[in-house]
């Protein structure tokens, strides 16, 4: 079971992306996408942005479960207060685990934002952030 995670900013610009595999049930945490599948991941995730924009006005919650389906893959979304979208591409349902993962990443994103030198919509290039996201993925996914 593999995951593709992306953070998209207010201008639909990508801020951060990562891939992981599941660490549960003997998985080794490495993403296993087929080669041609990998290049499609980014497209799938970004095309679901349209749907997110429609749905976001219908519901006041931050975690929107599954907003889009493509073949056998699902896209889940978490929308922050400042309209930053966390998108996760996955092939199996795991609502609660994904919600906890999103909450952790939200915590990390808010801390990144507290940096006075970091402006909204900037790329996140911190190695520490990357490490912590992967840690959260290992914990929940």
């Amino acid at each position, binding site marked *: 079971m593999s995951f593709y995670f992306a953070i998209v900013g207010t201008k639909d*610009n*990508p801020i*951060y*992306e*990562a*891939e992981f595999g599941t660490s549960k049930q003997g998985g080794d945490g490495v993403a296993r996408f087929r080669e041609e599948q*990998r*290049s499609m991941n*980014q*497209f799938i995730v970004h095309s679901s942005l349209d749907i997110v924009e429609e749905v*976001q*006005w219908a*519901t*006041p*919650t*931050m975690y929107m479960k599954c907003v889009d389906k493509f073949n056998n893959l699902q896209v889940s979304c978490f*929308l*922050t*207060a*400042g*309209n930053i979208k966390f998108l996760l591409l996955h092939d199996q349902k795991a609502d609660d685990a994904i919600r906890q993962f999103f*909450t952790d990443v*939200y*915590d*990390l*994103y*808010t*801390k*990144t*934002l*507290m*940096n*006075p030198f970091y*402006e*909204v*919509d*900037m*790329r*996140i*290039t*911190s*190695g*520490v*952030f*990357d*490490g*912590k996201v992967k840690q959260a993925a290992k914990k929940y996914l």
Partner: protein
Amino acid sequence: MQRGDSLNSPFVPFSPNPSIQQGTPTSTPPLKHTLSSSTSSNLRYSSSRKSIYDRHLNRSQRSELSKASFAFLFGEMVQYAQKRVNGIADLEKKLNLHGYSIGQRLLELLLWREGRSAKRETRILGILQFITTTVYRSIFNKPADGLEKSRDNEDEYMLIDNDPMVNSYISVPKEMSQLNCAAFVAGIIEAVLDGCLFPGRVTAHSVPTEQLPAKTVFLIKFDESVIERESVLG
């Protein structure tokens, strides 16, 4: 992997072609990596190896700040802006910009602190209530004094503060009587609105009365798109 001066900008666009852009950011070397010597790379990490990710966001929630410290800092901010602009409108815009970056961060922080029950605001009244109570209380420890809808214009709302804390020690000289340093707070409000996708303009106007010589009204003017969307949502 060398990519020349595209490394210097944090706004480099991603490319879907894996041969140009390799996967995750950790494979991208940190900015200035190839340019700096090994001695200056020690400055990037603190010796205790702690980063901002180790601090808890609620750590400063209960702490208080002395009003005098803030007043001095704010006074310096006003003087700094005054040297770099010519004109009152520009000065208010600079103060607005200072408040803007604070508002962006405050919005995320406040909603994070609400925890699991956090709700995004989708209606105009909702977001204005959020600003009047939550945002104001977190900065000034009291809710704003009033919220009104303008009778003449559909897209104008007014937030009333009887005594803005930022103005408490400031006496504006007579030749600049149109200036209101609460433009800083107006910037905070504007950023909170923009972040929740309610674009508009927020300006501060002083309306002194007999009992309340420092009364300030924040005029919030939303864009047309907001009003259209509000009427579609019913």
